[in-house]
């Protein structure tokens, strides 16, 4: 089973990399980019797990313990096949 974890800064937390990306896009002539937020995608291959809910619970635990810093980041877990 495969899990995809999306980690991003919480709303309101200043994303200086996102700001630089938005500025660069504007500099390239792409108008109307009001904001860019840079996050991370972590793909996990999970062996020996067949139950989706069990997988979701385990990956959520991984997010709380390591993959995200919940002081500044939020996360979303996607369970693929």
């Amino acid at each position, binding site marked *: 089973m495969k899990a995809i974890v999306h980690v991003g800064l919480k709303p309101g*937390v*200043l994303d*200086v*990399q996102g700001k630089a990306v938005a500025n660069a896009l504007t500099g390239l002539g792409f108008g109307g980019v009001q904001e860019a937020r840079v996050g991370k995608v972590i793909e996990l291959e999970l062996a020996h797990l067949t139950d989706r809910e069990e997988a979701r619970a385990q990956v959520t635990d991984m997010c709380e*313990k*390591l*993959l995200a*810093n919940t*002081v*500044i980041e939020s996360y979303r877990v996607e369970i693929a096949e």
Partner: protein
Amino acid sequence: MKSAVIVFPGSNCDRDAAVAIERVTGARAAMVWHQDQDLPAGTDFVLLPGGFSFGDYLRSGAMSARSPIMTAVRRHAERGGLVLGVCNGFQILTEARLLPGALMRNAGLRFVCREVSLEIANANTSFTRAYRAQRETAIPVAHADGRFFADDETLDRLEGEGRVVLRYLDNPNGSARDIAAVINDGGNVMGMMPHPERVSDPSLDRLSGWGVFQSLLEAA
């Protein structure tokens, strides 16, 4: 005073920290590998050094905060033992939730490596008492992820409780409220972005970091 310096893969200020500790306290620091389970018996003071532990992968300090030795460091802190995190060590302490907040990418997006002027915001701590006769000092910083962030409520509490220990006079990284160092509510765990171990050698023209280790010697 019995000191221990924790060595993570990618630490690079561990030796400098050990030399500074030995110079000031007169006793050699134990170098403790991050995979160890225990601190040497009778350890009074633990230093988490600067560097780029685990290559700053995922987030600065994220992996190190989950290293086996951190369980022992946490126990030591809970018993009231002294812990200082410098730079990457500060990042590790916030990731381990032994200190509040987080250290994020510098506002200017550049690595900043220079001496910074600091206000001694609280000279009544185990880490700063030797600075009580002065209001300012200057210590070098060297970091890309040094922008201290916490929510407003946490920042208000830190300020209200005198837990902001050092403040930048010319903020190099966009840290909230110019914060360069914070201490826990027990007063025994401090994190600072500036590197006191780099200015604690009498052969250099300045000794502005000496006071951190001198304070610890008096506290232990």
